[in-house]
C-alpha cells in the first residue's frame, strides 16, 4: 500500500512538473502575442519612434535594424574566433592537458555574466580605446558573450565527425588544412550555421551588455560603425520601466519575440534535417 501511494505521488509530481513547465513557457509567449497583436502593423514596423517622451508614438524601425546589425557584428566576430578555436582543439592540439585547460577556460567564459562583459566592453572599448558608445563596441561585446556558446557546439560537431573519413583523407596524402576546408567544414556546415543562428538570437535578445556599450534611447538607423544604435530589448526596457507606453511596449516585445522564434525555428529545422539524413 505504501509503495502504491509513493508511486502515485511520484507520478503526480512528474506530471505536474511537466504541465507547469509547458504552461509557464506558453503563457509567456501567448501573453505577449495576445497583448501585442493589435498594436503591431506595418506602420509600427517601418516608422521612427516619436512623441514626447520619445516612444509614445510611432514605431520601432531603427531598433529593428539596430538589433539586426548588432547581431551580425556579434556573430561575425564570435564565429571566426569560435571556429578557429574549435579547429585548433580538435585537429591540432596534441596535448590532452592543454585541451582540458582550453575547455575549462571556455566553460568559465560562458559563466561570466553578461553585465560583467558589458563592464569590460565599456572600460576597454568605450573608455580606453575611445570608440565611444557605438554599434561596433556593442556588437563586439555581444560577440564576447556568444563566443563560448558557438565554440562548444562547433567543437562537438567536429568531434562527432567520422574519424575514419578524416583518417582516410590523411592516408590519401591530403593535407590537414585541405581536409578541414574541403571535407570537415562543408559536412558540418548545417551544425555550424545552426549554432551560429541560435547564438545570433541569443545576442539579439540581450540588453545588459549593450546598455553600457552602445545602445541608446533614441538614434536614427546607424550610418557607420561608430554611431550609437537603438536596440529592441533596450527599447522595450525603457518603455516598460519608465512607464512610457505599455501598448508600444507590448508591441515591441511581440516584434522581438517573433524575430527570435523565427530564428530559433530556422536553426532547429537545420539540425532536425541533419538527423533525418543520418538515419
Amino acid at each position, binding site marked *: 500500500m505504501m509503495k502504491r501511494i509513493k508511486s502515485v505521488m511520484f507520478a503526480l509530481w512528474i506530471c505536474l*512538473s511537466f504541465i507547469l513547465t509547458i504552461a*509557464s513557457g506558453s503563457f509567456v509567449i501567448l501573453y505577449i502575442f495576445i497583448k501585442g497583436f493589435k498594436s503591431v502593423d506595418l506602420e509600427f514596423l517601418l516608422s521612427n519612434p516619436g512623441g514626447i517622451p520619445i516612444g509614445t508614438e510611432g514605431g520601432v524601425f531603427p531598433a529593428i535594424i539596430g538589433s539586426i546589425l548588432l547581431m551580425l557584428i556579434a556573430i561575425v566576430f564570435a564565429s571566426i*574566433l569560435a571556429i578557429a578555436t574549435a579547429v585548433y582543439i580538435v585537429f591540432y592540439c596534441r596535448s590532452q592537458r592543454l585541451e582540458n585547460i582550453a575547455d575549462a577556460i571556455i566553460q568559465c*567564459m560562458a*559563466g561570466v*555574466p553578461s553585465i560583467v562583459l558589458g*563592464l569590460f566592453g565599456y572600460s576597454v572599448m568605450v573608455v580606453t580605446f575611445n570608440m565611444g558608445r557605438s554599434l561596433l563596441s556593442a556588437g563586439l561585446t555581444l560577440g564576447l558573450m556568444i563566443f563560448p556558446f558557438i565554440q562548444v557546439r562547433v567543437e562537438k560537431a567536429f568531434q562527432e565527425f567520422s574519424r575514419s573519413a578524416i583518417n582516410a583523407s590523411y592516408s590519401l596524402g591530403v593535407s590537414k588544412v585541405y581536409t578541414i576546408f574541403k571535407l570537415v567544414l562543408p559536412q558540418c556546415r548545417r551544425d555550424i550555421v545552426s549554432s551560429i543562428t541560435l547564438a545570433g538570437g541569443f545576442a539579439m535578445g540581450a540588453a545588459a551588455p549593450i546598455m553600457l556599450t552602445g545602445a541608446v534611447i533614441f538614434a536614427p538607423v546607424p550610418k557607420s560603425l561608430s554611431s550609437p544604435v537603438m536596440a529592441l530589448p533596450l527599447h522595450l526596457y525603457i518603455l516598460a*520601466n519608465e512607464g512610457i507606453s505599455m501598448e508600444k511596449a507590448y508591441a515591441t516585445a511581440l516584434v522581438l519575440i517573433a524575430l527570435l522564434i523565427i530564428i530559433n525555428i530556422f536553426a532547429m529545422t537545420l539540425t532536425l534535417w541533419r538527423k533525418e539524413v543520418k538515419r
Partner: protein
Amino acid sequence: MKTAFDKVSVFLVKVLTLFSLLLLSFIIIFIFKEGYTFFKEVPILKFITGTTWNPTGDPKKLSIFNIILGTLYVSIVAIVIALPIGIGCALLLSGYVKERPRLIIRGFIDIIAGIPSVIFGFIGLMVLVKFFEKAFGFASGESVLAGGILLAIMVLPYIISTCDETMDKLYRAYSPVAQAMGISKIYILRTIVLPQSLRGIAAAAVLAFGRAMGETMAVMMVIGNAPIMPKLLGKCQTIPSLIALEMGMAEVGSLHYHALFAAGFVLMAILLILNIALYYVKRSLDR
C-alpha cells in the same frame, strides 16, 4: 608537402585560438584593474562586509554586503522553485515521451530558453508584481519572491536539459532489463534513475545557480532595487542590477565608478569558482 596557404591557415588558427583563450584573462585583468583602484581606498573586507551603499552621500559609503546577500537570496529562491519542477519534467521526458514528440518538446524548451530576459522582466512587471499587489495588498509587489519566481521560469530549461541528458542515458541502460523483469516504468524512474542521476542534478543546480546570479534585466525590473537587507517579500538589490542601473550615472574615474567594477569583480569571482566546480562535476560525469 605544405603549401603557403596551409602554413598561413595553420598560423591564423593558432593566433585566433590563442586570442580567444586569452580573452578570459583580459576580462578578469581589466575588471580587477579597475576595481583595484577602489580596493586601495576601501579594503576588500570592509567592501564585502559593510552594509551601507550610498554613492551620493558625503562621505560616500560603498559596501555591498546587503547586495551580495540579495543576489544569493534571489538565486536560491529561484533554484528552490525550479529544481523540483525541472527534475520532475526531465524524469517524465526521459521515461514517457517517445523520440519524435520529445524532439518537439525539447525544441519548445529551447525556445523558452531563448526568450530574452527583458521580456521575462516585462511580464514579471505586468503580471507578477501586479498580482502580488492585488492578491496580498502589498504597497509594492516588487520583491525577492517575484524575482525568484521569474528566475525560476528562466532557469528551468537549463535544469531540464542538463538533467534529461543524464536521466535519458540511465533510463535507456536499465529499461530493457527492468521491463523484461516486469518492473513498471514508474518504479524504474523512482528507484533507479532518480537516485543514480544525483550528480547530474547537482551539475544542473550549479549551472542554474550561476545563470541566476548573473541575470540582469529580468531581476532588475521586479526586485525594486533597494540596497537593504533582503526579505522574502521585501525589496532588494542584486550585483548585476546595481551595475546596470548605476553605471550610467557614475562619472568615469570616480570612486563610485571603480566601486561598481569592484562589485563586478566580486560577482565574477563567485561565478568563476562555481564554474570551475561545475567543470569538475561534469568531467566526473562523463567518465
